[in-house]
Structures are given as structure tokens and as C-alpha cells.
């Protein structure tokens, strides 16, 4: 073999390391605190390096790293405590969101702000706090979809659940977030409460 062939170090640095920022942002949302997220990132990359021999070039490196990161996080949580976040029974709905199609928030906002402009008045930290308050299963799905743009199948593979469950988690997680942010906006006076919502 020629000496020009890249070393595993070089390959790792080229293929895997560029995703460090994305892994950090994901870890931060999983862990909630910067110092814990940093430890999580370091552990993720250490494990990724140790199992780099199993990494197939061309597979989506970011998804691979997110999977490692989440597994490390969940193991830490398990070690520290029994997993206390119980997500409502989530029999995958064939048609997530079909049961309650109209957003319940809308009956509150349709008179004053039907297009949800109030969301933009909310500071980012408040949005992040609301995301962090979601159960891990919802939070992970929302972050992977809305921050990283992973598709349903990629999220399903990563979380090891069916696609229907991913849709359901995204739907419920987003509804919870919307309600949380709506309540905050009302409290802050960003949104006038509709005097008598119809229906």
C-alpha cells in the first residue's frame, strides 16, 4: 500500500470530526447543562473512535454519532436513576395527528393572532427551556427533525422505533411545546386572550 493512503486518524478527522458542533448541540439538548454536554461529546467521540473500524464510509456520519451520543446519555441516566420520564402510551398511530386535526391553540388565537406571530416575540432561551422540559423521547425527535433535518426514517432508525412512533412523538412533542409557548406568551402579554373562544 502506498504511504499516501490516509491513516485512520486522518479519515476520522475528515469524516467524523466536522460533526462536532452538531453533536454538541444535540448533546446540550439531551443533557440540559453545558458541562454535562461537553463530557457527553467527549465520550461520544471516544467511543466513535474506538469503533471507527465498524464505520462504513458513506453512511451518514452524523446519524451514527447521534446514535452513540444518545446511547451514552441514556446509559448515564439509567445509571443515575431509574428512567423517570414515562411517555404516555404511544401505540404508533397509523396516522399521527388524525384524531385531533385542528390545533387546539388555534381556537384561542384565531381572533387575535391566527398565524401565530406571537412565537417570534418569545426569546430563544424560553423556547430552549420549553424544549428541555419535554420528555426525552419527544425532545430527541423534535431536535433531530427541526435542528438537524433528519427524516422520519432516519429518526426511527436512530431511536429504534417504527416510523409511526416517530410521527406520533413529533406531533405530541410539538403540541406540548406550542401550548407551553402559548401560555408563556399570554403571561408576558404578547398575546391577548380571546374573550370567548367559540366552539
Amino acid at each position, binding site marked *: 500500500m502506498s504511504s499516501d493512503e490516509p491513516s485512520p*486518524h*486522518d479519515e*476520522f*478527522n475528515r469524516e467524523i*470530526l466536522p460533526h*462536532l*458542533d452538531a453533536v*454538541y*448541540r444535540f448533546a*446540550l*439538548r439531551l443533557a440540559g447543562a*453545558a458541562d454535562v454536554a*461537553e463530557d457527553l*461529546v*467527549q465520550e461520544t*467521540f*471516544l467511543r466513535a*473512535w474506538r469503533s471507527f473500524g465498524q464505520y462504513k464510509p458513506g453512511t451518514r456520519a452524523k446519524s451514527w454519532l447521534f446514535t452513540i451520543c444518545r446511547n451514552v446519555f441514556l446509559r448515564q441516566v439509567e445509571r443515575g436513576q431509574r428512567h423517570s420520564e414515562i411517555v404516555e402510551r404511544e401505540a404508533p398511530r397509523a*396516522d*399521527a*395527528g*388524525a384524531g385531533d*386535526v*385542528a*390545533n387546539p*391553540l*388555534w381556537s384561542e*388565537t*384565531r381572533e387575535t393572532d*391566527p*398565524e*401565530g*406571530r406571537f*412565537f*417570534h416575540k*418569545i426569546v*430563544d*432561551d424560553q*423556547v*430552549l427551556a420549553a*424544549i428541555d422540559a419535554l420528555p426525552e423521547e419527544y425532545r430527541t425527535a*423534535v*431536535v433531530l*427533525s*427541526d*435542528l438537524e433535518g433528519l*427524516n*422520519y426514517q432516519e429518526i426511527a432508525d436512530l431511536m429504534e422505533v417504527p416510523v409511526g412512533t416517530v*410521527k406520533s412523538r*413529533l*406531533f405530541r412533542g*410539538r403540541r406540548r*411545546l*406550542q401550548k407551553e*409557548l402559548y401560555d408563556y406568551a399570554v403571561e408576558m402579554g404578547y398575546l391577548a386572550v380571546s374573550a370567548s373562544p367559540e366552539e
Partner: protein
Amino acid sequence: MIFDGLMRLLGLGGAGSEALANGGSSGERDGPDGREMISCHEAMTRLQEFVDGELHGLTHEQVEEHFKVCTRCYPHLKMEESFRQKVRTALAQPEVPSDLRDRVLQLLGHDDGADA
């Protein structure tokens, strides 16, 4: 179609949208390419998938056409988009610690070739 568009411009509501909401896709109204216009119920059911770009069984254009025409469903789409935009902006915020990359490289026993 022209009539619906005109009604919408005049703020008088998408003709047929109310009827379709109750009755599902009636087939009375057709999309621009002759396909049957989907119902309000179907459009709302597919809202998340539409915004996520994950529609199956329907094309993006079919659902988009409904939201374009239906004054009743349109604000729901706008609200969802507004929410998503806010979430995306917030999630992209945190700064990555500047020395984290160096610490990871050190931990792995690599250098990244920057000084090679």
C-alpha cells in the same frame, strides 16, 4: 378555481372549503391538473407531514394547493410554519465552546493535521 381564488383575494373564504370539511373530498372541486382537491380534514391531518416534507400517498402540490385556496386551513399552516421557524432559530443558538475540538483531539490522541 378562478372563482375560489377570487373569493380568497376578496377575503370571502375559499368556496367549498366548509363543505369539504364536513363531507371529505367530494370530488366537486378539482386541482389545477384535474386531480380531485383534497378535503380540509385531509389537509389538516397531513399538515405535519407536509411541513416536514414527508408526504406519502399525496404529492406536495396536492396539499399545497389546498392551503393556497382554503382560507380556513391557511392560517393553521402559517401558525405551524411560524412555530417551526422559531424552534429552529432557538435550537441553532448555543455557541460551541471554542476549545472543545482541541480537547476532543487531545483525548483521542490525534492532531487534526492543521499543523502538519
